[in-house]
């Protein structure tokens, strides 16, 4: 799962640490913009072989690294069991 962290750090030129914890809202912190959001979704779908539903993309579930991880983990698990 650290691939996600690496991707975000590389893509958005940030480093998660005490001053920028993993539960930071990437939109509010100015890290994510439209271009970056689309790239992130593409990356996650490709990397983990998952598809986000419209609801997931339009909802408020993909705003922090913590939330993104949880969502991806849930979808990967669902795929494995489904």
């Amino acid at each position: 799962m650290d691939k996600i962290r690496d991707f975000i750090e590389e893509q958005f030129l940030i480093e998660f640490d005490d001053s920028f914890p993993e539960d930071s809202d990437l939109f509010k912190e100015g890290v994510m913009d439209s271009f970056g959001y689309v790239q992130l979704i593409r990356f996650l779908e490709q990397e983990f072989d998952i598809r986000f539903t419209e609801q997931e993309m339009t909802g408020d579930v993909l705003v922090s690294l913590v939330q993104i991880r949880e969502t991806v983990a849930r979808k990967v698990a669902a795929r494995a069991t489904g």
Partner: protein
Amino acid sequence: MCGIAGLFRFDGSCEDPSEQVTGMLAAIAHRGPDGAGYVVDDGFAMGTVRLAILDPAAGLQPISDESGRYWLCYNGEVYNYRELRETLVGLGHVFRTACDTEVVLRAWIAWGPDCLTRFNGGFAFALYDRQRQELFMARDRYGKRPLFLARHGETILFASEMKAFLAVSDFRFEQDPQQLASILGQWTPLPHQSGFRGIESLPMGEWARVREGRIERFVYDELSFAPTEAVASEGAAVRRIRAQLTDAVSLRLRSDVEVGVYLSGGVDSAIVAALARELTPHPLSTFSVEFEDAEFDESAEQRLVAEHLGTRHHARRISHADIAEACPDAVYHAEVPAFRSAFIPMFLLSQRTREAGIKVILSGEGADEAFLGYDLFKETLLRAAWSELPEDMRRSRLERLYPHLAHYGPKDIAAVTGLYHQFSAEKMPGLFSHELRFQNGQFSARLLNAPGDPFAEISALVAGSPAFGSMSAVEKAQWLEYKTLLPGYLLSTQGDRMSLAHGVENRCPFLDPSVIGLASSVNLRFDDGFTEKRLLRDAFRDRLPGAVADKRKFPYRAPDAAAFAARRPDYLDLVLSESELANLPFLNAKFAQRLATKVLTKPAEEVSTKENQTFLFLLSIALLDRFFVQRQGLGQAVGSSALPPLQRAVDLRMEAAPHASQGNLASLT
């Protein structure tokens, strides 16, 4: 067009200020290469470098009234000067020249600051009342012409461009991180900001009074989008637009020298060119920037318009190398951090224009702000209505909004819908329309170690504006455009500063107050705003090639980081080397270096808009530091620049208090 500069001392010093003022004028000689003039009094001096356009022989500056009480240094044009002159003659004023400068002087004498609301034009001036030892300064409504003020010990300095202050020996420039945070956040300086500590820009629509060492500011024009006329039908709207723009272009063709037109390839400049062609007796010259990089090039449409109108067309073709090479000079002229590179080709275009012997040009600037041409306005309409729109409507409007961005294609539309959902409710009071854009700004603000809240200043600006609160979401978006991107970049960094760098004056018919009033009277009345500038297009459809009349808004841009990555000019060290970055202690050097390395090594398609933007900010901040703070690398730019031929030098110090004569008129004409 001209440049003005001066100083007002309050320490009782008797030191001769003439050397200082001529030094300041020499630093802005590019604005007025045709001649220089100045006036000196006890503790006071101001002067003008002049680009002679109206009454070239008689319009020497500074000018005064018969009594020698009032002295004026003036930069710009008041296009309705003939009408004002007639009114003033009716009031008993006697004119000595046919120049608009004298109209401004006598209008001030007749009406005081109330004259400003009568002026239709782009101007900035300084008017000295010798009798009362007061200095007045004013700027036009939309921020067309610049004026900067700085307090320097017991002296107040003022100039059309800050580089004039480089000539003041002990004046020190210092970049102000707090202003930089705000500039990075909202992409451009706010009306009062300069980027440097202790230097203020006089905001548009304001005048200032300086007396006894104090500066007081007054607003004479509040930006409003209230309808100015009743327009009954769509047909009437189209007819009025046609008539009003014809008047606006006609007024701006008043010149004793030939006027050309900048053609961007878009509909706005094509309309201006079509009208200019009809209204001028001589063949029309047009000028365009072409790009080797096809992604940015609009030469097909430019040539189509030029052929259609039968103009003498001149193009300046721009390569990556041109951008990399001209960047330092263009940044020096711009004086403030820039968020994109598109101003650099305009620097080269004005050079080309001047070489062709043209010193006045018209452009389409201001049309998008007045007639809601930007996607930003559609985006605001969509986001404001988001919660009430059904899902399919949201999608179809989004698809209409951004067809030119690959990542907004059908494949990604769901992701973008998600993003818009995030931005469908206001988070920053008053700034709803710009919240998406400010995301990029927030990223750029990371260049600073301590950016604080980059939006505190702009939030205070909107909160302090009496009319803003009651505007609609789209009007607020317009208001913000008129206070940020238009004056802070388009009219300045990409407009006035680039054209005047080579002594070319740019005029904007779409910035005529009557045009803006009319646009406010018809916008969104006869359509939903999703076909941008529809009425404007309809008004001139029959005079333009179809491909241009219906061309979608294509934002004028130039290659950003890619141009520098391709050429790797030496000065990139400023943003790549640790030791160079250490000269800018307010920068987050680690982030800056990471960013610069990324954008200069990754393929262009992997570099996002905000990264390009942040890189241009970084590079321009570093170059500004070198030129203005370190005073290095100025080369030919300043120091060695010479004063244009001195045509008038007036020394009032030996004169008795104002009256009778024009002072010791040591006119060198």
